[in-house]
């Protein structure tokens, strides 16, 4: 077994990477991976540029603002998308999700300062509101406000880039509130402690599939009619909710941050479907007959708005 282990792959590789990660996090107090920032209290942040269009540090410092021409291009794309949605009888909503460090800058190590007020995400939201009639929901205020009122609660996963159950609930509820159909407030909900999911950042660090000791709080009893998941692949998620009347249909073109929104959103739709924005196809409108179309963009992927259109 050891021989085949050696021949097929390096024996003990995962164990060695785990030891290396622990040594770096606990002893050297530095990140073993150049794409990850080791913050305070076990918080990890992503600073890598593995996707050529992303630059999280520039997003944070506000050094990668769009030009006037680029903003106009984005506005044009969103306006045309709104028109196309309207032709199909759907409402089109743009949702912007902030990078984790924008909401939790205090956990970054020293030297990064505070997040720039005049950053891309704010720039895009302000421009679209001023120059188009597309509804734009920037999740930064709702997350920041909740964090200020409830500092003991965490809205993002510590060892991962994503928002957690609470953070996604707040975001989903913002969307549903805009549609006039809100869920109960987060503070009223029941929580169940569960082991945290695998973290994209802890994997980069070499901790492997388990990151010990982290837990999250799963939300229960936020609705009387939970949707049933009928499809779950790497990029697609679909839900059906027979109990829901009227039977409205939701289409989401987003990214991994949309995935955690779906169970909450779907509880107030008869049918809900999401796919990643780069897989979006006009056929989806015909196929799903949506009443609401949500285009969700994470702060570090804002550049994709330059080329996305329904």
């Amino acid at each position: 077994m050891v021989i085949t282990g050696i021949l097929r792959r390096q024996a003990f590789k995962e164990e060695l990477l785990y030891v290396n990660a622990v040594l770096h996090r606990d002893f050297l107090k530095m990140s073993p991976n150049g794409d990850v920032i080791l913050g305070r209290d076990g918080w990890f942040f992503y600073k890598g540029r593995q996707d050529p269009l992303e630059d999280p540090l520039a997003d944070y410092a506000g050094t990668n603002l769009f030009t006037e021409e680029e903003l106009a291009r984005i506005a044009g794309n969103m306006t045309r998308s709104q028109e196309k949605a309207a032709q199909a009888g759907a409402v089109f909503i743009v949702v912007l999700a902030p990078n984790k460090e924008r909401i939790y800058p205090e956990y970054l190590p020293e030297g990064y300062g505070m997040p720039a007020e005049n950053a891309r995400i704010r720039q895009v939201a302000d421009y679209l509101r001023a120059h188009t009639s597309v509804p734009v929901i920037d999740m930064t205020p709702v997350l920041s406000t909740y964090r200020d009122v409830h500092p003991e609660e965490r809205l993002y996963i510590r060892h991962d880039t994503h928002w957690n159950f609470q953070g996604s609930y707040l975001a989903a509820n913002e969307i549903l509130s805009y549609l006039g159909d809100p869920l109960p407030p987060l503070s009223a909900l029941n929580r169940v402690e569960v082991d945290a999911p695998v973290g994209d950042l802890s994997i980069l660090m070499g901790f492997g599939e388990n990151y010990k000791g982290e837990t999250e709080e799963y939300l229960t009893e936020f609705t009387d009619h939970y949707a049933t998941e009928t499809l779950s692949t790497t990029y697609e998620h679909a839900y059906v909710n027979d109990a829901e009347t009227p039977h409205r249909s939701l289409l989401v073109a987003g990214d991994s941050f949309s995935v955690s929104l779906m169970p909450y959103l779907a509880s107030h739709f008869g049918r809900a479907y999401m796919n990643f924005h780069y897989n979006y196809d006009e056929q989806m409108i015909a196929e799903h007959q949506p009443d609401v179309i949500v285009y969700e963009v994470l702060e570090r992927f804002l550049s994709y708005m330059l080329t996305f259109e329904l």
Partner: protein
Amino acid sequence: MVFSSIKFLWVFLPVTVIASACVRPLKLKNLLLLIASLIFYAWGNPVHLPLLIVSILINYAAGRLIDPAEGARRKAYLVLALVLNLGLLGYFKYTMFALRILDRLLPVSLPQVEVALPIGISFFTFQSLSYVIDLYRGQIGVQKNPLDLALYISFFPQLIAGPIVKYREVELALKERSVSLEDFASGFRRFLYGLGKKVLIANQVAMAADTVFDAAVLPALPYAWLGALSYTLQIYYDFSGYSDMAIGLGRMFGFHFNENFDYPYTADSVRHFWRRWHISLSTWFRDYLYIPLGGSRHGTLRTYRNLLIVFALTGLWHGAAFTFVFWGLWHGAFLLAERAGLEKVIARCGPLKYVYTMLVVVCGWVFFRAGSFFKALSFLSCMFVPAASGAEYAFMMPPPVVVAFCAGLLGIGGFQRLIRAGKLKAGRLAGSLAEAACLLVVLMLCILLLTADTYNPFIYYRF
């Protein structure tokens, strides 16, 4: 393949050691080591394996032709061997350099040719030349067995990064050798020292050196010095680490190679530095170029000329660019000055002579590393002239790099020379269980770091 990799440590080395130990007849052992060496070379460079084989065949044939011949014929065969060996080296290593020079001199624009550099060609070419020349001079016997000659030229411990082993160092061992447990253990310990020097010191300080040298802007004075000193440590620990690994590995298989480094940074003059740095190369140039040119036997001016030629070529051997030639001449110039009387002056300066030597060496390395002549000069001016502006690198030295840098400074050679002279009690620890335990920790840390180095996952694989 390189020694400091998981593939080598985890698979290649154990398999080769065990296989070699299981095989009894020496001829079979040699064949096994030859096959292992060719695999070692081909692993990283399958394209260039034929070149290595061709080089071996050329030198084997040359040996067989030179040995029985006499007079003009003997010389002709030698010249043929020289031309072929140096021709191959020249083509693969220096074509692009030559074309660049011609392109600048000639009014017409020459085509840009891309010639990939076969790893180790400088080493195995010089090694083969030493065989052929020593044979011509009657200092060694001809090797009639092509497989044994092939083993000498391509033996994996010294194939890629030296030392340049002279044939007479292994002539006997090829026919007859034994490996006692003591030899094996001491060889393995030597190997681990080398591995630690490379992975735990050289690779770490390299990060600091790269930060400063690869930046688009010039550094502030203290950072220029930190960068230069980091590179000074990097190149020593990297190169001498590799030599330690080579010598250790050789010993594990029953071969005894000569030392290649003798704590060069403890030298008290540039002349003594060259007796301690890359010894196998400087002795090669001394035996096959300096002495044939006349050495120091034909008057001062001729001696100076010979020294400058040797050092220019030493520089050129290291790399196909003018910065390397200049580095060689930089050392050559100081050697000349020392011969002309400077050495007597500095010998009277007490500890300052070490400072002088290191200043020459460190500044020389700036030319070696900077990438262009202009950049080197700018960098040196940053080191000696405080400028109004210069980049500062607050995060240049994370904790592991600081530790490596300090360890590097402490291990320069002062303590080791005192131990060798019997002046330090720590010398008793050599070969002890405590030393073995420390080396085991070194090995584990190296494996840890090397494993992590190869781990570059994509954050979006789940997306």
